[in-house]
């Protein structure tokens, strides 16, 4: 174990900023400190670096209590990159050389120091920048030079405070990759970061911090959940898992919920957009019949709509079919999406026919039916029947127009109801 924080409690002024913090950092590990502004991430880093003295608790680095080390010794063990922006007209070489300060006595710079500085600059891909003025570099380049300065410190632990804030997306990725590469070759890191996606992409472990307390710790999948993000950041998000990589997006916002029911006959993702759009507009949605884990099924379930479903890869049963018809009866509108039809879901066309007969049906057709018909003549005849029963102005080839048509119809209906 490289670093251990035990029972850390820190007071600034009259307020407690860190409360009973405990965690460990193993060799080769990247730990992300995640939390909103003012949660204590920077304070924790400064406490670990020994700048802020805790009122309780100990921090061990390599088995040594850091309160017994002076700042010069600490700077050899830990490379700390503050969030404070740096500005000076020093040359890039001089800035990187500052990383050698903990090893330099008065003004004696040895050739080995210069060599280490040059290597550090090379590691961040800025060889040849030595004589450029720091103040004349771009934001991304400055941050890379500062990173080289920290690398030149040759410390096993990196303490990085928001190393990517204020940078554009390509610089963010570059900086994080450089840090990752460095850790792979050399030691470990604690990174304060408020970009949740960046944190989960680059950190092995996350500590979720709320008002100076660790509320959750572990691998990104375990730490980042809809609930924990709402609790700590007060934000409503959807958490996606792309093959173990956690990603959050702002949760969709729903308009005032109406009592208009729309049933969607879909499958294989053909209903995805319609479902989401209608849900956002505040309609009550249902769908069926779908196989469990079908991507439309996932969408409706996520949005907590009603689904009539069958187990994966199984045919629509009589029972589900009658439930589907029941649902159609209850609904104000029914939409038949651009789904593919096979023997398994042929009954969905029968259900759509029923909807067409009761003049509730809207059709979304993007592709020619033949190209998505895998159930032969019977399906084709059924579909033609459905088309015959549906007016031309209820057939659409894109979601936007379809939904607009439903909305127009609704406002007309309300108007006629009122009069």
């Amino acid at each position: 174990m490289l670093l251990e924080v035990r029972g850390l409690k820190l007071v600034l002024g009259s307020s407690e900023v860190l409360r009973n913090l405990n965690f460990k950092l193993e060799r080769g590990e990247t730990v992300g400190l995640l939390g909103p502004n003012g949660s204590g991430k920077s304070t924790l880093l400064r406490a670990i670096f020994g700048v802020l003295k805790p009122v309780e608790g100990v921090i061990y680095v390599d088995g040594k209590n850091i309160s017994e080390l002076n700042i010069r010794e600490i700077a050899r063990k830990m490379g700390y990159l503050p969030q404070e922006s740096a500005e000076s007209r020093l040359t890039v070489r001089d800035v990187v050389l500052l990383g050698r300060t903990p090893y330099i006595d008065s003004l004696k710079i040895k050739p080995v120091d210069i060599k280490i500085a040059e290597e550090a600059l090379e590691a961040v891909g800025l060889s040849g920048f030595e004589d450029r003025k720091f103040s004349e570099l771009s934001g991304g380049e400055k941050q890379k030079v500062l990173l080289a300065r920290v690398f030149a410190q040759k410390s096993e632990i990196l303490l990085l405070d928001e190393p990517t804030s204020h940078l554009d997306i390509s610089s963010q990725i570059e900086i994080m990759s450089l840090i990752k590469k460095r850790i792979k070759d050399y030691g470990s890191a604690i990174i304060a970061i408020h970009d949740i996606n960046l944190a989960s992409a680059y950190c092995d472990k996350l500590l979720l911090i709320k008002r100076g307390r660790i509320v959750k710790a572990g691998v990104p999948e375990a730490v980042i959940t809809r609930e924990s993000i709402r609790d700590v950041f007060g934000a409503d998000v959807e958490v996606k898992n792309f093959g173990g990589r956690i990603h959050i997006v702002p949760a969709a916002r729903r308009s005032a919920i109406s009592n208009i029911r729309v049933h969607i006959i879909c499958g294989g993702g053909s209903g995805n957009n319609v479902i989401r759009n209608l849900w956002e507009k505040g309609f009550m949605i249902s769908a069926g019949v779908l196989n469990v884990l079908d991507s439309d099924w996932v969408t409706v379930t996520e949005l907590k709509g009603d689904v009539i479903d069958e187990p994966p890869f199984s045919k629509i049963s009589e029972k589900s079919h009658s439930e589907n018809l029941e649902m159609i009866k209850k609904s104000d509108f029914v939409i038949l999406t651009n789904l593919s039809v096979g023997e398994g879901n042929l009954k969905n066309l029968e259900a759509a026919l029923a909807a067409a007969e009761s003049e509730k049906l809207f059709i979304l057709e993007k592709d020619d039916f033949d190209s998505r018909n895998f159930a032969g003549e019977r399906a084709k005849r059924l579909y033609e029947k459905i088309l015959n029963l549906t007016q031309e102005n209820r057939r659409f080839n894109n979601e936007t127009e379809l939904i607009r048509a439903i909305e127009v119809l609704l406002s007309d209906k309300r108007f006629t109801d009122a009069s």
Partner: protein
Amino acid sequence: MKNIHSTQFILLLLFADFIALLFGIGFGSSGIGFKQLFTDSANPLVSAIILNYRLPRTLIAMFVGAGLAAAGCSLQALFRNPLADPYILGVSSGASVGAAIVILIGIASTINIVTAAFLMALLTSIVVYKIGTVGERVPVYTLLLAGVAMAAFLSGVTSLLIYISAKDMHQVVFWIMGGFWTANWFKLQVVSIPIILSSIYLIFSSWNLNAILMGEEHALSVGIDVERFKKKIIIVSALLTSAAVSVSGVIGFVGLITPHAMRMIVGEDNRTLLPSSLLAGAAFMPFVDLIARTLTDGEIPVGIITALLGAPFFLYLLRRSRDVT
């Protein structure tokens, strides 16, 4: 600027210092020039003027110029503020009060004026430092504000002292304007030792000053105990400036302009900038003093000349740097 160039530049400045020394000895209002220096050196008048007057005077000017420039340079780096100068801690106004008191109560011997000015200067900077300290830290802005406020207060005190005793007004005002006409070997001793020691300390601090340039948090991150270092630099600068002011009065702009001019030539790296400023100050001051004592029949206070030359030059730098950055 590469290292080799900065070495050459420093050699050039050393040469300029040498020339300044020669000129300071070789010219003067008495009309004794280089010629007499070699042909008539046995003449007791010539040797008296050279040895007892021009030599200490020129050396004092060099030390004062070097000291003010070095202190200005260090404080500009420490505060990361281009407007910082050696008098930022209220040293000049403190020294003025000290000198004024001694002159007005009628005990104005050289040693009394120097001692009073020095002690009051030091005392003022201590008070400013104490007021500017918040907890255990010394935030730059509180220190600067405390210095400005203290200077304003003490200027008021000096004005009051001058006002209530109109008899010696001339002498006090003359002292405040700054000059080297009362130079002697005693003053040289007073000024040289603190300035030499302080300057050496500052030059050895130039690496840490570079780190501070990046920001205090960044200096901390490379293992510098920033608060302690700040205290040391402030104390050393105050000591140095107090010594300079006590023998020469308030000579403005040298400590502000010299580091700026050098920065434009050698760049920001204090390892080069500090020695360059120091040597440039040492060359500049005797030249200005030479102008002060030869331009008219009488003698113009040096502070007037530095302000007349310095302020327009500063404005020029300001315009230029605005175009650059």
